[in-house]
Structures are given as structure tokens and as C-alpha cells.
């Protein structure tokens, strides 16, 4: 029974270790004064209010949403059809797309940044578009995973054939049959991609820098100037990824339940 206790100990250690920084930052975001005492001297909404009155922050937030949302939208328009075509019509080439997924996943931003700057910094296109393009490619693993899992749950090819046998046009079969079945997986993949991109710092900082100030760049700037404002930013960031994670969990669960029927 000794081992059981050891396992429980490590489990609590893991959960505690993961939660502690989250809770501390959340508390700090509402603390009036917290320099010398262990718990904050009082609680206040001042920092959050200040943050929301700061146009610089609102703009940074808008830029982050625009950039991450734009990349996800482009990825949905460009990557999803490509995955469909390969999985449905050229299954023997699927291993190539899987290789691309592994490659994209294993190359971190710091390596890609070197190449992007080398290729594009001198030809005069705005570097923000370069980052956008890199973001679209960067979320390939999440989009692929979401789409592929849904396609695997249903027998997409047979479904499409059946629909067309019953008189549906190609377009109808695609929009009325295929898309609704892969929609939950796709949606979860899109949300996950969005939250990953929302937290991205390396590419935007190295390739574009402060010329396009996202939430992460804003936070980096505040880190050295105001701890309270920084914690308010982190609080909002945590709430956002919390919400996204929650929705992803619900959507994934529902899609699982649906295919079990």
C-alpha cells in the first residue's frame, strides 16, 4: 500500500504545481497592495478597470484577435479542403501530409524565425503578412488532427457515395453531409489553434517586433513597468484560454457521443 500513497503524493504534487501559479496570478490581479505581506492587503477591481481604459491594450487585444482569427480563417479555407482531397481521393499520399504535420510541429518558432527573416526581410513585403502566413502553416497539426479524427469516425467516402447515389449533387453531398459530420472536430481544432496563436510570442517578436503590438508584446512591455497591470493582462488571458478550453471540451465530448450512437 506504500506505493499507492507515493502515487497519490505525486498526483497531488502535479495538480498543486499546475494550479498554484494560475491562482496566485489571479489573486495578484485583484490585490490592492502586495509588496510586503503574504496575502494581499485588500482586493480591488482597479487594475482591470485601468487596463480596459488603456487604448493601447484594447488595440493590442484587437490586433491579437485579428491576427490569430485571420490565420485560423485562412487555415480553414485553405488547409481543410486540401485535407479532404488527400484523405478522400489520394489516401496513399496521406503519409506526406502526416510528415508535414510532424515537421511543422517539431520546428519551433525560433528556428523558423531565422529562415523567415532571411527570405523576406529584404524584398519589401510587410513582415506582418509573413507572420500571418507562418501562423497559418503553424496550426496545420491542430487543424489536421481535428479534421482527420472526424473523418476517421465516419466512413466519409461511403457516405459521399451513398449521398450521390441517392441523387445529391457533389456540392450538396459535401455541404449537407460531409461538412456537418466533421464540423465539431473542425470547430475544436479551430478554437485550439486560436488559443495557441493568441499566446504566440516568438515569431511576432522576432520577425515584426513592436511595430505590431499584440497582447503578448504588450505584456512583455508591462512586465518591467507594472506588475499589477501585467497580472491583469495575464488574468484576462487566463479567462480567455479557460473559456476556449471549456468550449473545446464540450464540443469534443458531444461529437464523441454523437458518433457512439
Amino acid at each position: 500500500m506504500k506505493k499507492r500513497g507515493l502515487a497519490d503524493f505525486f498526483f497531488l504534487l502535479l495538480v498543486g504545481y499546475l494550479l498554484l501559479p494560475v491562482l496566485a496570478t489571479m489573486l495578484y490581479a485583484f490585490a490592492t497592495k502586495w509588496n510586503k505581506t503574504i496575502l494581499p492587503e485588500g482586493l480591488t477591481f482597479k487594475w482591470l478597470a485601468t487596463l480596459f481604459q488603456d487604448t493601447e491594450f484594447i488595440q493590442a487585444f484587437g490586433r491579437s484577435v485579428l491576427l490569430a482569427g485571420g490565420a485560423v480563417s485562412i487555415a480553414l479555407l485553405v488547409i481543410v479542403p486540401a485535407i479532404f482531397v488527400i484523405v478522400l481521393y489520394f489516401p496513399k499520399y496521406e503519409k506526406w501530409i502526416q510528415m508535414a504535420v510532424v515537421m511543422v510541429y517539431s520546428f519551433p518558432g525560433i528556428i523558423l524565425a531565422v529562415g523567415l527573416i532571411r527570405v523576406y526581410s529584404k524584398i519589401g513585403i510587410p513582415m506582418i503578412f509573413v507572420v500571418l502566413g507562418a501562423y497559418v502553416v503553424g496550426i496545420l497539426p491542430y487543424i489536421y488532427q481535428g479534421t482527420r479524427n472526424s473523418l476517421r469516425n465516419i466512413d466519409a467516402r461511403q457516405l459521399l457515395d451513398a449521398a450521390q447515389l441517392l441523387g445529391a449533387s457533389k456540392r450538396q453531398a459535401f455541404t449537407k453531409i460531409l461538412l456537418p459530420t466533421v464540423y465539431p472536430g473542425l470547430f475544436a481544432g479551430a478554437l485550439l489553434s486560436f488559443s495557441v496563436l493568441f499566446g504566440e510570442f516568438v515569431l511576432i517578436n522576432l520577425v515584426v517586433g513592436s511595430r505590431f503590438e499584440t497582447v503578448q508584446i504588450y505584456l512583455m512591455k508591462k512586465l518591467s513597468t507594472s506588475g499589477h497591470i501585467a497580472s491583469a493582462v495575464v488574468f484576462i488571458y487566463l479567462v480567455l484560454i479557460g473559456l476556449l478550453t471549456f468550449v473545446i471540451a464540450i464540443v469534443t465530448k458531444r461529437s464523441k457521443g454523437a458518433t457512439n450512437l
Partner: protein
Amino acid sequence: MVVLISKRQSIAWLSPFLVLLLLFFLVPLLYMLITSFQNSEGFTLAQYKSIFTNDYILQGFKNSITLSVISAVIALFVTLFAVYAMMKFSEPVREKILILTNLTSNFSGIPLAFAFIVLLGNSGLFTLLFDKWDIDVLTSFSLYSWGGLLLIYIYFQLPLALMLLYPIYDGIQQQWKEAAALLGASSWQFWLKIGLPVMLPGIVGTFSVLFANAMGAYASAYALTSSNYNLVAIRIGSLIKGDIFAQPELASAIAVILAVTMVTAMLISEWSISKTRRKVK
């Protein structure tokens, strides 16, 4: 019966994706590779030569590798036991724990570094607490150096380790345990002789993913030590950004070596995780 789409249609659907992949992934990486072999006179191995004779860069590699290995081993060790404890919970509870870890897996980079500053920084929660209690474990500890980096690296390794180990653990069938118990094996014997050997390739695979994950991490180390601590990723960052003066050729060569390390780690992981899957099935 297979409904075919015309060649033209399939090209139309595939090409935008392929163009993007080419422009924003393959071409930059290829160009980086070429740059690493270039200087003003043409082809050269000078960059690579200077990396292997430059103690500062070598130290950066050494620091990164040590940090990555230690954080991966600790995270793996903790998770191995933690997942074992998790298995006794009911399915819905386990799912909730997984959602929670999922949430923390997105908590990385600058926000994570800041959270640790709140806890252990100069006027952090624990710094003050231990000060008050006159416990001096933290007096020799500085968040802004090796120890702090290790804590943060362990933090972002844990959720990843859990998500990778959980399915591998889940593959260990209850019947195996019962069969082993019927044949007189103790729980320890089961894990030592059956459980761990079956899981071993999966554990090795998880380790390589964690290693690669830490080797490429940049944002949290940058936020915490603002390029003062010598890590490979930080080195590359300052060489391209021109904190001192930009040396893109040298940065490219370091990045190529880092990339080779990661591709190797990922290949090992792909190979060994697929091996476990086959075994478990």
C-alpha cells in the same frame, strides 16, 4: 464505387495549401540551411567551425541540453506516478483532470514567466512567506537564473507529459493485471516485468517529445532572464535580432544544428511511440 473529382478540381483544392507550405515553411528552412554554409565569399564551413570552437555557444548548447533533459526526466517521473494514481478515479473525473491539464498546457511563454515572478520573484508570495518564517531555502535561490528556469520548464513539460503518457497507460489492460495476479505476481512484479517493459518505448517516445519541446522553448526564458542566461534559443534570438549585432549566417548555422537535434528527437519518438501502440493493441 468511388466518385472522382477531376484532376483540375483536385489541383485547385490542393495548390493553395501547398503554396503556403512552400512559402512559409519549406523555403525559409531551406534558405536557412543554405545561409548557414555561406559568407561573403561563397560556400564555407566557417560558421560551423566557429560554433565548435566558440566556448560561449557550446556552453549555450550544454545549458539547453541539461535543462531539457533534467526538466523532461522530472516531469516524466512525476507523471508516471501521477497517472497511476489518476487511474483509480472514475472516467468523468479523469476527463475533468485532463481538461484542467489541457488548460495549463496553453499557459506558457510570457504569462507563465510572470506567474512565477508572482510566486518566487523578488517580492513573490513564497519569497515573502519564507522570509517571514525565517526559512532560508530561498536565499540562495534566484528565479532569474538556472533554478527558476528549471521550475518553469518543468511546469510546461508536465501537461504535455501527462497527455502523452495517459493513452500509453490506458493501454495496459486490466486483464493482464488480473492474469498476473492469478499467476502469483505481486503488483510490483507486474509493473516491473510486464507493465513498464510494455510501456518502455512509449516512455522513451514521450521523453524525446519533451526534450524537443524544451530545446525549442524561447519565450519564457526570454521573459525571465531577458537574454542574460545562455541558452541556444536565446542565442539564436539575439543573433538575428541584432541585440549586439546581427549575424544571420551564424544564427542560421546554430539553428540548423538545433533543428537536426529536434528532428532526431522527433524521429525517435515517432518510431518508439508507434512501437508501443502496436504492442498495446
